[in-house]
């Protein structure tokens, strides 16, 4: 038994199953992070004092991390574009770069976190630190999730390219959509937590 429209688009919707699935998933992710941003707003307007992020957090490191993530989004698009032109070698290169840039982001985050712990700043210290660790922590889990999928598509998952290149390209496109979303969340997180 074959499930229809896993690879080819259905004529009247113009989409394949995976594409709709990933967009629906992203819609639910918007609701998840939306609720947490709403929490941030409610806690901040309800408190008598709220620190400016730049007095506590390391803005240069976060700026560097923003550039890292945006670059990884660019390499992700290039990876997909290479597949569209059926250049598997360049795909491997760009896909590998995407995973590595995700790793750089995590390294920087590790140094940021340990500096905070070193200065006795924990989630329980105050609500600014609490929402900072919760939001960036949850975002980090998403980065790790995206890296796992991207690494799989770079490595063992790329076998599919030999048998069904179109399906494989769709998979890379969908994981790319998720990766851009993770990037986008960071672009909202950065000013909200570090600059405002």
């Amino acid at each position, binding site marked *: *038994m*074959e*499930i*229809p*429209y*896993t690879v080819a688009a*259905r004529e009247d*919707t113009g*989409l*394949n*199953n995976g594409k*709709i*699935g990933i967009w*629906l*998933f992203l*819609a*639910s*992710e918007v*609701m*998840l*992070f*939306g*609720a*947490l941003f709403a*929490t941030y707003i*409610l*806690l901040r307007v*309800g*408190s008598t004092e709220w620190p400016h992020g730049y007095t506590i957090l390391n803005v240069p490191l976060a700026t560097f991390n923003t550039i890292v993530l945006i670059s990884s989004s660019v390499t992700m698009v290039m990876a997909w574009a290479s597949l569209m032109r059926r250049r598997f070698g360049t795909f491997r290169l760009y896909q590998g770069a995407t995973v590595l840039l995700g790793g750089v982001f995590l390294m920087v985050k590790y140094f940021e976190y340990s500096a905070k712990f070193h200065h006795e700043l*924990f*989630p*329980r*210290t*105050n*609500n600014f630190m*609490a*929402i900072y*660790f*919760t939001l960036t922590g*949850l975002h980090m889990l998403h980065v790790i999730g995206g890296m796992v999928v991207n690494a799989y598509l770079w490595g063992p998952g790329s076998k599919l390219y030999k048998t069904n290149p179109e399906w494989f390209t769709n998979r890379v496109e969908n994981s790319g959509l998720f990766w851009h979303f993770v990037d986008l969340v960071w672009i909202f997180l950065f000013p909200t937590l570090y600059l405002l």
Partner: protein
Amino acid sequence: MATTKTATGHDVHAAGAGHHEELGFLRKYVFSTDHKMIGIQYAVTGLLFLLFGFSLMMLMRWQLAYPGQAVAWLGKLLGENRMPGGVMLPEFYNELGAMHGTIMVFMGVVPLAVGGFGNFVLPLQIGAPDMAFPKINMLSYQSYFLGGVTMIASFFIPEGGAAQAGWTSYPPLANIATSGQTWWLVGMIFLITSSLLGSINFIVTTIQLRAPGLTFMRFPFFVWAQFVTSFLLLLAFPPLEAAGVLQLMDRVAGTSFFMPTGLVVSGQVAPNAGGGNPLLWQHLFWFLAHPEVYVLILPAMGIVAEVIANNTRKPLWGYRSMVYSLGFLGFMSFIVWAHHMFMTGMGTVMSTFFQTTTMIISIPSVVILTALILSLWGGSIRFTTPMLFALAFLPMFGIGGLTGLPLGLSVTDIPLHDTYYVIAHFHYVVAPGTLFGLMAGIYYWYPKATGRMMNEFLGKLHFWGSFVFMNLVFMPMFFLGLAGVSRRLFDGGETYQFAQPALHYNVMSSWGAWMLGIAQIPFIINFFWSMKAGKKVGANPWEATTLEWAAPSPPPHGNFDHPPEVHRGPYEYSVPGRTTDFQPQFERA
């Protein structure tokens, strides 16, 4: 799809669509990716949880009717730390209350209505070979199962047992509760993941895997109901997941998201940094939990619509307006949540806004209910067991809905808030409402799932017992609530002077609950007995018009012998000039 090798080693795909491999026991029954098996897994697990959740309530009803009286054998059965000498401890009562709500809503009704019926019926009704993502479908069930195991396991935590802060888990109480609450949160994250995976699958399947000719306005109403429900699950659950993460942080990492400054616990100021907001939890929780109410009711409405059209032998009255109402209802359900919070002091402007939206959302519900009632008019009704349950759904849901109006208005809510009236109101919607709808569905689609009919006599016994005793359980609660008895009392109100004239209603309600338990025995017997000994049926025993009846009963792997095509709307019953009184969607001219 990856090609699978059978034991003989030949390639199944090369063998063609007509050939189906024999799967081993584990692949067929436990790790199945077939939507029908997953649907049955969901339904059976859901039914077991419903029975379990109901048993918790039957225990609580003893304490409410006869507060402080001992049942010796229960003490031995449940242990001295729960019921020493057979007398229930307040902490255990709280566990039962919290877990009854959680189990019934998240592990009973929703998995049966959406996971069970949605998985089994929806792909058949749209003529699909399976769900769009069969493996994700399997993961969805497994995640639900793990969530259920986590919740049940929490009863056996040596210190404090399961969650005690109610199914709503309001902080700060939930923040300072025993470790069962942490288990509850972890269990909820599994359950939320499950319904997220499920809802994506349903939406994609509905949009993509429709049979040729099946346009949206030719959908059976049940498909529409599941479609809208899936959007509610998809978009309303993530905020609760966020809230769950925040509460988990509060409990595990010591943050103060929901802990206000200077909170005093047992005479001492709590060690938290403070600055949090308990109302924040309520907003995030009800942002899910109000749409959740519609998640509970819409699939049941869909089932009732199917059963009514089939057993009145005429088209649904106002199909289009029902569909539009459904969509409007789904949208509105996202902006009514704070009518659960009129008494929190959130302000009159907020209350006015939410009472207005609440009054507006009652309109589409009434449109659907009215259309269903009008559908009966002029029909030659067959009083089969599913039809009896579907017919009973109408007045029961009507009572539940109408008694909700005083709760939705911020002024009349004040005296009724947190009384037994509220319990009676929402149980009329969910228990004799939704559950009757789901029961109708079980009797209606059982022949499709097993190839055999359920016994009509036992079915009618089950129906009349359930109908009478369901009302005996919940009707007295309206009177208790109007007498002002709070729903949160461990002794059912015994210590309050003003409650004395109403206390006998507690006894009535409790006996109703126990009798309702007995009334389910014919159903349990019927369910198993009919599997072996029920009357064998063909593809279309109810002479119905929708696509699931084109497949053999039970449908094989891949569902249909030939890919079905759709030629007309879903309810072409009693078309003038035809020899039969039904014209299936899949029949050519």
